[in-house]
């Protein structure tokens, strides 16, 4: 996006590394804790992330988690295909992340 090298594997699960993104490891761990069922882990990861971010930054992380829990469900329950532009821009990314393993990939024709 801006010339920064990012470790794509971080998107598919915690690797413990920052993935080339500031506080990446803690962001991933917090996101996983929010989406999981372990309340102790959630409290721990929230506290850990808050030591690294300002209050405003923390709110923006939380808001992003909220946003994509909407978007994902809208996409999967309406069967919308990936837009052609996004397919083109993200082709390598999609392959790198093995996104075709997701059932909802059936809504987007493979070229």
């Amino acid at each position, binding site marked *: 996006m801006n010339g920064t090298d990012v470790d794509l594997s971080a998107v598919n699960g915690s690797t413990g590394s920052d993935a080339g993104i500031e506080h990446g490891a803690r962001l991933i761990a*917090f996101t*996983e804790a929010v989406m999981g069922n372990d309340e102790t882990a959630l409290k721990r990861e929230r506290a850990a992330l808050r030591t690294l971010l300002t209050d405003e930054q923390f709110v923006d992380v939380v808001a992003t988690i909220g946003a994509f829990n909407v978007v994902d469900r809208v996409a999967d329950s309406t*069967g919308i295909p990936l837009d052609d532009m996004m397919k083109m821009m993200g082709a390598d990314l999609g392959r790198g992340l093995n996104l075709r393993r997701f059932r909802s990939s059936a809504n987007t024709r493979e070229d």
Partner: protein
Amino acid sequence: MLVPDYSAAGIAVRQDLKDCHALLLHHVTAPGTWWTGAERRAIAEESRLATTCSLCRQRKDALSLNAVQGKHDSTGELPGDVVDVIHRIRTDPQRLSRDWFERVVPEILSDAHYVELVGVVTMMAGMDNFARAFGVAPFTLPAAKPGEPSRHRPASAKPGTAWVPMIDVTDADGPEADMYPQAPFVPNIMRAMSLVPDQVRALRRSSDAHYLPVQQIPDPTARRTIDRMQMELVAARVSALNECFY
């Protein structure tokens, strides 16, 4: 309008988010296009209840979508088959398929009732995950508002590549003229619920406040107090955990 209580987190929430949450809480309990305020509130409550439903939990662990049968933990306010639709969208959206959708529409719900239901269920998922991440209780749902649904079906909604009819950007005129952002690119996610235009308007408000305005998305320098790479890392991890290809 009812404003959520964020005080337990001990952090200030920016005003546009507060306004958005108040608006969405009003939106999911007010008369909609096809459902009454009371029905929409019941859908919102079911969406929330789905997260602790024992049938949903068993199904999530099962290998196939229909391997486990039973009754959902439910408020009892809505018919059982509608409850099932709500719970599946909320807890197992990654396994929804066109086959499943074609068993729901039109037998259980009209396409428009379905789209509006999707809107309410998903908005609740967004707000509930915000509250959970933030460290506060789920936002209190206000009482249902009286009034009749508008029953407006846009003439320009057409079948296409999605499971539901949608309005092309070039066909959004008349009452739908304001629906899409004025941007060179309007993604399918914005068009997904256009059979019920008020759901698109709600999604735009939600997306603008929680993520970025649609016009800014293609700009790699657009960001919030966290940088764009951090935003996209979090977004991508959420979507990977939801197993969402889009």
